[in-house]
């Protein structure tokens, strides 16, 4: 199957984050609505221009309805796709197709959670399925631990390699004022941190923060006339291979292999062309798996790839340049934040701005390595 996709025909016209870190006293809806307001304003538009809503909240299964009501919208199309943290990349794919078809004119994609201030618990009610639940895996952590343990067994990946992912994320975060976790972090800190579900320890896990994010998408020809630099969407693909990790044919290979290859084919690029990658790092093993599955290094080489500073500041492939879910923010789901960091790099306004970024990849992960979705963003020069 070869995909058809309206390469570059739609673009991010506005974006915003709000309340990243700690925002006590705000509901998830309030944080999300504030991010949405900022993103629509950033695009030089108003709520009256928005005719499609894409949203997936942690604590509201009817979020599309609640959010439309809250903002005073009457969307012609509302999408509550819920594939976990990859949902936002899928939202972009759907929005691009609907925009290109002329079915909608302006899409608002939003997410927010007060997960940290609301007690630090995962606000979602998602749990293990009935077959896995009797064995009490920590959800979702143990599933990632099972993947990491097998990766170590097959490829010799070491805890030091996992730690290298956390150290790179922290190094980026340390120069990003928006990042929640800043300050020194050493290899020894990582290796001696409390073991939760072997081989994953505290420092292998993403943060629990508050935060909200929103992007506005229009057709690129319209975005050209709006105040901010358009960030064209060159390719977007999603792939779902399982829900429970027990059903993965190979827990060291994720559907990112498919979503990445398809998205890059749509964009007409290869991994070598990607100047920065924003990868959903719920756990340190994620970054390693996605670097492999997206084609930045061969399967099994991810640990060695990250261990020599390749993804850290100054490395040849800057990854998670905001600090990622490990050190910037992780309000329940991180996907939209990865998209926004990629878009900021292209707009030239990232906290850790890299020189001359024309092509960035953002990759989302949902469930227990279950649902993968990849978007390729470019500058206007890539059209």
């Amino acid at each position, binding site marked *: 199957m070869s995909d058809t996709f309206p390469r570059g025909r739609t673009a991010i016209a506005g974006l915003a984050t709000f309340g990243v870190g700690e925002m006590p006293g705000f509901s998830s809806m309030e944080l999300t609505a504030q991010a949405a307001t900022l993103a629509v304003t950033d695009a030089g538009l108003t709520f009256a221009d928005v005719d499609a809503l894409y949203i997936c909240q942690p604590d509201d299964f009817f979020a599309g309805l609640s959010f439309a009501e809250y903002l005073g919208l009457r969307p012609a199309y509302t999408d509550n796709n819920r594939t976990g943290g990859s949902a936002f990349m899928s939202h972009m794919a759907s929005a691009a197709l609907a925009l290109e078809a002329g079915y909608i004119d302006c899409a608002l994609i939003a997410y927010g959670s007060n997960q940290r201030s609301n007690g630090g618990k995962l606000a979602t009610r998602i749990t293990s399925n*009935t*077959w*896995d639940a*009797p*064995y*009490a*895996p*920590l959800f979702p952590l*143990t599933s990632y*631990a*099972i*993947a990491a*343990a*097998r990766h170590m*067994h097959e490829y010799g990946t070491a805890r030091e390699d996992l730690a290298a992912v956390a150290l790179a994320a922290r190094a980026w975060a340390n120069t990003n004022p928006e990042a929640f976790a800043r300050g020194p972090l050493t290899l020894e800190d990582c290796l001696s941190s*409390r*073991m*939760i*579900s*072997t*081989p*994953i320890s505290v420092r292998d896990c993403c943060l629990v923060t508050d935060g909200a994010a929103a992007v506005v998408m229009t057709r690129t020809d319209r975005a050209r006339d709006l105040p901010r630099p358009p960030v064209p969407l060159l390719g977007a693909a999603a792939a779902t291979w399982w829900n*429970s*990790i*027990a*059903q993965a044919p190979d*827990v060291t290979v994720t559907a990112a292999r498919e979503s990445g290859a398809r998205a890059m084919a749509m964009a007409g690029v290869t991994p070598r062309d990607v100047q920065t990658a924003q990868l959903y790092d719920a756990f340190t093993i994620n970054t390693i798996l996605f670097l492999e599955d997206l084609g930045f290094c061969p399967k099994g080489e991810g640990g060695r790839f990250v261990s020599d500073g390749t993804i850290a500041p100054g490395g040849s492939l800057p990854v998670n340049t905001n600090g990622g879910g490990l050190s910037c923010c992780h309000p329940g789901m991180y996907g939209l934040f990865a998209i926004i960091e990629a878009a900021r790099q292209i707009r030239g306004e990232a906290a850790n701005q890299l020189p001359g970024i024309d092509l960035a990849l953002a990759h989302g992960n949902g469930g227990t390595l279950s649902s993968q979705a990849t978007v390729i963003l470019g500058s206007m020069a890539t059209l």
Partner: protein
Amino acid sequence: MSGPETYWRTALGDGRFLLQRAPDGTAVFPPRVAVPGSGVGTLEWFEACGRGTVYSLSWINRRAPAEPYNVALIDLDEGARLMSRVEGVDAESLKIGMRVEAFIEGKGEEAILLFRPAEGAA
């Protein structure tokens, strides 16, 4: 008459560990109403031999004095994979690749499928 999930649990409660087999011989778990991947043909029940190999695992640490417990993925000899727990092992002895055998603890609705090292397993 019941759905396959209830059928499987009822059998487990009676001390029997069942799997399904697709027309091409592939073992299927968890039990389904349709052949995964094609939807063509019917799934037939059969009794699992109960032997398998540890594919991956994690030990979950708990606040003392509670002991750590493991969660393991088991590759059954028939080909299906499932999540379970291996009993009678510790963090030193439980390894990926270890041969294990199934046993059912409890009766009726309390029944749970567990594994222990196969006789002669290192």
